[in-house]
């Protein structure tokens, strides 16, 4: 769409993936490369070692998912989490915590607990990450409904371009409990993390081509594509498939209703 090639690109130093039927990038890569069959199993949430025991008890499943998948990428790259700027992206937030607060507020005694309240901020994962990792660099959390992965990728690459330093992108979603779940259905929990380095020259290169009205790419396996379309964070799966297959190419990801994001992979 744009006459000039976007300068927003980075090498992918490492990935983390947690979703239905895969616990890490190695498992997801095998499935997406066609080397292993995919079996639909409920997403297993990690217990992130990064968090001290007291914090582990305090945080919700959403934060565990975000920190766990982020640490997969950091560990795989042998990076120092304390030095990394982070971009978190999520379509929703901590639905279980929100549900508990709304139930309390609808009752006679509206006194909610301090921990419930400070866990209610949408940047809870970002805050706990910073505390656990000792990371004082920029950290953010952005949302764009079903297009939160695409939005997060743009923000993370723009931040990496501006800092000229690696940025960790962590995109995650977790289903709501009822009655909110009836108004917003998510298939299961899904998290993905990409450690993006604008300077490095090794590893696959991801580049923003630009916004497009072309149709989004889908996965050939209908059952697996149901994961892609059923969880906003999993809208990245066509991009992960390209990476898993070791192929270069262009991939179109869901972003906003009529507007999609075209991304190039070079490897």
């Amino acid at each position, binding site marked *: *769409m*744009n006459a000039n090639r*976007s*300068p*927003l690109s980075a090498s992918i130093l490492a990935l983390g993936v947690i979703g239905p039927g895969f616990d890490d990038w190695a498992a997801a890569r095998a499935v997406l490369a066609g080397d292993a069959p995919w079996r639909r199993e409920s997403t297993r949430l990690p217990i992130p070692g990064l968090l001290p025991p007291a914090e582990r008890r305090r945080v919700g499943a959403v934060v565990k998912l975000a920190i766990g998948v982020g640490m997969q990428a950091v560990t795989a790259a042998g990076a120092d989490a304390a030095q990394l700027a982070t971009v978190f992206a999520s*379509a*929703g*937030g901590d639905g279980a915590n929100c549900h508990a*607060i*709304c*139930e309390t507020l*609808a009752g006679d005694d*509206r*006194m*909610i*607990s*301090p921990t*419930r*309240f*400070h866990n*209610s*901020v*949408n*940047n*809870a994962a*970002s*805050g*706990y990450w*910073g*505390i656990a*990792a000792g*990371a*004082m*660099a*920029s*950290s*953010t959390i*952005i*949302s*764009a*409904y079903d297009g*939160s992965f695409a*939005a997060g990728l*743009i*923000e993370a690459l*723009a*931040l990496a*371009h*501006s800092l000229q330093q690696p940025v960790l992108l962590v995109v995650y979603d977790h289903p709501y409990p*009822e*009655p*909110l779940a*009836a*108004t*917003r259905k998510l298939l299961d929990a899904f998290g993905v993390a990409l450690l993006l380095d604008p300077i490095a020259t090794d590893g696959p290169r991801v580049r923003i081509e*630009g*916004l497009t009205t072309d149709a989004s790419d889908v996965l050939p396996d209908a059952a697996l594509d149901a994961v892609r379309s059923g969880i906003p964070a999993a809208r990245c799966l066509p991009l992960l498939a390209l990476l898993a297959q070791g192929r270069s190419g262009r991939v179109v990801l869901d972003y*906003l209703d*009529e*507007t999609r994001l075209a991304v190039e992979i070079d490897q």
Partner: protein
Amino acid sequence: MLTPLLISRYTATSCIGTGLDTTRDALKHCRSGLRQCDFESVTLDTWIGRVPGLERMTLLPALADYDCRNNRLALLGLMQDGFIDAAIAAVQRHGAQRVAVLLGTSTSGILETELAYRHRDPVTGALPAEFHYRGSHNIFSVAEFVRQAIGAAGPAWVISTACSSSAKVFASAARLLNAGLIDAAIVGGVDSLCLTTLYGFNSLELVAPEPCRPYDPERSGISIGEAAAFALLERAPDTLPADAILLAGYGESSDAHHMSSPHPQGLGARMAMEQALAGAGLSPGQIDYINLHGTGTRGNDSAEGLAIKTLFDHPPPSSSTKGATGHALGAAGGLEAVFCALALADGLIPGSPGTRTLDPSIDIDYRIRPQPARLGHVLSNSLGFGGTNCSLVFSRADARTEP
């Protein structure tokens, strides 16, 4: 260094004024818009900054799915000072895909969810059928609403980093503009009163039983407010009027300390200010005024004051405007960015209604009364839960060109 960006239009709506005229007048006369809490069924002993009339507003049928207090406030804000027309003109000038909508909010339309939970089906527990998740509860709702209202089709997202949300959108927009991905951005923040924040801050014993008193030794917490603030960011042309307002720098950091209390020495806040100054190519001595985060809690004001004292050898005049507006949370950064633009344009150091005396343990040049002053460069701080910090530097065009 950041290439300074033009803030070609801006507007603000809060409890001190709907639009810039009343806002200017309130800042000039140090008027507070806080009132004893009369919001919904809330019985807390506290004061709030409520924008009047939202309860009676209606949205156009085409946008009815987005009806919630937060989006009503967004629309009220958009309609002031010709902002919506300027935004639509920017879409026509640059092309819809070249205009981004990046907004901050902390609670989106959660009030509607809170109310819906009072009317669950007694048998199934279901929420009422009229509850519309995507248009109200979802955190992206306000950006989706605004981009539809103005016809923008460029990148869009919501930043929700508690009380730094709508400061950080300026940084995101600057990066997209400088990377050439967009030609203009609608940035700002919209946050509205709800029970979660009133009862939540109350649970942390952080709401004051009186109008908040930033930097006062007797300060006892925040007054919660609501606001909608918008700015139109574009690349600056080669020649600008002397009083044009520029975004000159931004800085972002994390405390890595605690979820709900700041780093005691304000280390993260200091890092954000240092980065913002470096991005603007300015030394601390060139800053003429600081709009403080200044919430009126004991922890914030002492940590922020310490951060300023260690960064500035001779701290410039500073004040918190939260005694006027209350703490607009996710909209505070955007609201105070507009106050900085007004301060630069009008040559006014805003005062601090509510503050009676100054905390002697905080050694900065805090101003209680408003005062005319020639301002060239100003700094705005936004600090939030989770240890998130963002500082912005704004400059007058004539201050950037002077030797």
